[in-house]
């Protein structure tokens, strides 16, 4: 149950806390435990059985922060804690009564002790209604983590290195391998843009390039039926062949039309819908998954993660938790608008126009506790009636490649109209998803705690690097998709058949619609192998990749 998450390595205790622990151990904490009470929202306070208002023993005040001495239980306000410590030698450690947080009088600062946090949280958990309180204090499952790590390594590049060492005599520039324009086959920029991103999703790319997709023995192909996976394999081979002339993904388009008949038309489609539909096609075409457990098709192995949803009853604190898989996360734009600001309230936000939406803001919004409307009262198992509740989302497990979709298209079924939200959104190139993990989000419900539980995802890093941005410009009906790819420290704009190198400012200023992030380690490994070496006279003979014409 000890914290092993590097983000939360316990800060070294100050000298005074260390001394206190040496002399008193956990006895002070244990005595305090009885007096801790927690509200359904998760705030733990120290409340002794007396109904009297706690007051400072020096000034009788009760309005400032009050601290309870761990040794003698006397209460001082923030102005007088030092006085108490001077009067009684060694009485240096106190507890903030309202928040149940440790305070060192001599350092004048908050201090942290996982043993203390453990005790506070245990009390909280004990007081909560039994079962389904949203927290599992048992040790995290380790086998699933290990399996995922192995899965990631399988999609490793060892085999690809052989392919990449091949020199293409036709490659004129020193552009990285795998950069090739895609012809627009009639409003198919929605497809081209997503394909460019998929071409460079490290584990996805590796799967198709290392021949894990053995298309020669594909049963569908041999019986002359369409196979989406084979077509994708052919597509990858063509793009990575070294030929720089624009490619027409007609076969792939046709194959996809067969799968998503409802989207088969020459009209512009939504790139995000295409993305989901392609992954779905891959999933269905792949190996049939076992009834239980995770699916091992390449789409799931690369893109799937798990979301956690907690619904907490506001009356009793009972929390109901559910887990759902996801292939991507759709985010609402954070606009900085809040429901209760007056028009007269100019001091807080002078004008909404100056608020810049950011990806982190959207993620914050996504994981923010949301009060469910009175028409959505949740049936609380503990209270046995419908109660007002709060819902909060968090990420239980991150995928290898994270696709974030910004909801820019608003549909109003009642008015039968849709519109596009053009609002600019700032996004980072390096993204740390730690604050949005279930472990972080749930931990925050207990106040300022250092103690980690529920098996933090330690083996999988939470750091991601961006590798593709799908942008949309124009209106809902007549718009254009363009993808920016980040390869080997250079950004490339992929506008259908035209590929150009661009500066990073251009990408930052673009109107993003879908963002693709890969786990940092995978991204850097993938980029190492994209080295395009100049042709030397004594080079190996050109080795054609199967499927390349």
């Amino acid at each position, binding site marked *: 149950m000890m914290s092993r998450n590097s983000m939360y390595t316990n800060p070294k205790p100050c000298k005074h806390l260390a001394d206190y622990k040496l002399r008193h151990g956990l006895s002070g904490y244990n005595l305090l435990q009885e007096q801790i009470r927690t*509200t359904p*929202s998760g705030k733990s306070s120290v409340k002794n059985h007396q*109904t009297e*208002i706690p007051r400072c023993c020096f000034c009788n005040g009760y309005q400032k*922060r009050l601290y309870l001495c761990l040794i003698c239980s006397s209460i001082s306000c*923030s102005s007088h804690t030092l006085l108490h410590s001077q009067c009684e030698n060694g009485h240096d450690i106190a507890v903030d009564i309202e928040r149940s947080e440790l*305070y060192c009088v001599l*350092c*004048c*600062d*908050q201090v942290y002790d996982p043993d203390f946090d453990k005790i506070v949280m245990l009390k909280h958990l004990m007081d909560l209604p039994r079962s389904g309180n949203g927290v599992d204090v048992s040790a995290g499952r380790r086998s699933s983590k290990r399996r995922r790590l192995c899965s990631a390594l399988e999609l490793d590049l060892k085999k690809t290195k052989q392919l990449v060492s091949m020199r293409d005599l036709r490659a004129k520039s020193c552009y990285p391998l795998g950069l090739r324009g895609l012809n627009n086959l009639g409003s198919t920029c929605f497809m081209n843009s997503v394909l460019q991103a998929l071409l460079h999703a490290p584990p996805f790319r590796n799967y198709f390039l290392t021949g894990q997709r053995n298309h020669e023995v594909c049963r569908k192909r041999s019986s002359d039926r369409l196979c989406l996976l084979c077509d994708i394999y052919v597509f990858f081979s063509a793009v990575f062949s070294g030929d720089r002339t624009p490619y027409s993904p007609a076969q792939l388009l046709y194959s996809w039309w067969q799968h998503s008949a409802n989207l088969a038309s020459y009209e512009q489609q939504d790139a995000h819908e295409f993305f989901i539909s392609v992954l779905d096609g891959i999933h269905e075409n792949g190996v049939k998954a076992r009834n239980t457990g995770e699916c091992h098709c390449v789409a799931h192995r690369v893109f799937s993660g798990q979301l956690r949803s907690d619904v907490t009853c506001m009356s009793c604190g009972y929390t109901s938790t559910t887990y759902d898989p996801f292939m991507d996360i759709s985010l609402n734009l954070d606009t*900085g608008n*809040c*429901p*209760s*600001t*007056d028009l*007269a*309230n100019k*001091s*807080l*936000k002078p004008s909404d126009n100056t608020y810049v939406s950011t990806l982190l803001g959207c993620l914050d919004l996504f994981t923010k506790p949301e009060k469910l409307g009175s028409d959505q009262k949740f049936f609380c198992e503990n209270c046995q009636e419908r109660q007002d509740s709060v819902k909060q989302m968090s990420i239980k497990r991150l995928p290898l490649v994270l696709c974030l979709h910004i909801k820019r298209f608003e549909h109003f079924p009642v008015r039968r109209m849709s519109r596009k939200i053009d609002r600019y959104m700032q996004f980072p190139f390096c993204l740390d998803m730690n604050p949005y993990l279930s472990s972080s989000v749930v931990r925050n419900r207990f106040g300022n705690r250092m103690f980690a539980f529920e098996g933090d995802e330690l083996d999988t890093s939470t750091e991601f690097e961006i590798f593709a941005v799908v942008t949309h410009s124009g209106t809902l009906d007549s718009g254009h998709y363009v993808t920016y790819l980040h390869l080997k420290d250079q950004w490339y704009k992929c506008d259908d058949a035209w590929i150009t190198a661009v500066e990073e400012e251009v990408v930052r200023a673009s109107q993003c619609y879908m963002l693709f992030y890969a786990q940092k380690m995978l991204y850097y490994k993938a980029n190492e192998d994209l080295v395009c070496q100049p042709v030397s006279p004594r080079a190996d003979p050109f080795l054609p990749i199967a499927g390349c014409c």
Partner: protein
Amino acid sequence: MIESGEKEKLMELLRERLVECGWKDEMKALCRAYIKKKGTNNVTVDDLVHVITPKGRASIPDSIKTELLLRIRAFLASAAL
């Protein structure tokens, strides 16, 4: 008012309103900026409290002040009976 638990309820309501209107986020941002300026190891909780309190008090939206005042008055009126 404290003994009846009303103060606690009002405090909860106040917290909710302050989060809703973004005041809490604003304070958080101010704290972060201060910590960045001073250096993580040179700031104590007491420092922060002293620096932020005046700014916090000044930037509470009027609508929230009004709402809380009304509720307090209503409680006192009902308790006096």
